[in-house]
């Protein structure tokens, strides 16, 4: 997993740093879906939201440590992406009978028809990195897109 791969799913347009905490998960989903739509990653916000909520009904996407990884997979995703969001304070994220106070959100947009697996590989690699405290710490201190890239460039 080298830096160039990380960069291909990260995008300055889908990086939302230091925003005020959201009132709830729905507000978060709505906002980040708009970001993905505006960045040209999805063609329908409504369908993407549907796929996010479908996933939410399968199991929790709050991963502990203030991190949430909601993910939507549908044919309306035309460009695989990760929307990286950091809020200035934690807010309550309720997900499948669990609840966690989160401030780092990585919303995955996965194309419904995936023939190459290339982007799944990248998303999987990103998910692996989030297990490491040093990566998370860098992300939590990130103020610019370059900081986010730097955090994800660091792997062992």
């Amino acid at each position: 997993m080298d830096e160039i791969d990380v960069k291909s799913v990260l995008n300055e347009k889908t990086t939302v740093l230091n925003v005020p905490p959201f009132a709830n998960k729905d507000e978060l989903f709505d906002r980040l879906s708009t970001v993905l739509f505006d960045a040209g990653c999805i063609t329908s916000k409504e369908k993407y939201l549907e796929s996010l909520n479908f996933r939410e009904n399968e199991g929790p996407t709050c991963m502990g440590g203030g991190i949430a990884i909601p993910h939507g997979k549908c044919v309306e995703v035309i460009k695989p992406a990760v929307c990286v969001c950091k809020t200035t304070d934690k807010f309550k994220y309720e997900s499948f009978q669990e609840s966690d106070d989160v401030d780092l959100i990585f919303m995955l947009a996965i194309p419904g028809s995936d023939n190459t697996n290339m982007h799944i590989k990248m998303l999987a690699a990103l998910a692996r990195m989030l297990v490491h405290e040093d990566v998370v710490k860098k992300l939590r201190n990130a103020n610019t897109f370059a900081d986010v890239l730097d955090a994800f460039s660091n792997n062992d």
Partner: protein
Amino acid sequence: MFVVGVTSCAFGVAHTYMAAEAIQKACKSKGYEVKVETQGALGIENELTMDEIKRADLIVFANDVGLTKASRFDGFKDKIREFGPHAVIKNPDCIFEK
């Protein structure tokens, strides 16, 4: 100590790989040898061999969908511990708790 693991999850994108990484991290921090097979959207990766399964002191399943090639583990029930991938990600050290 040699720990092997198998992880999987419904979508096969996030939890499978996070749980695998969490198991590796927990084992490495204790100085244990570790190998984790992932059964995710990419199919089986880092597949465990019969030798490794036999040699393992602890077999960790972190799955919430059925495992592929589960018959490899027949006969080793006494050293298998089962968890959900979510539990392992939130508290990796749970795999060592008695």
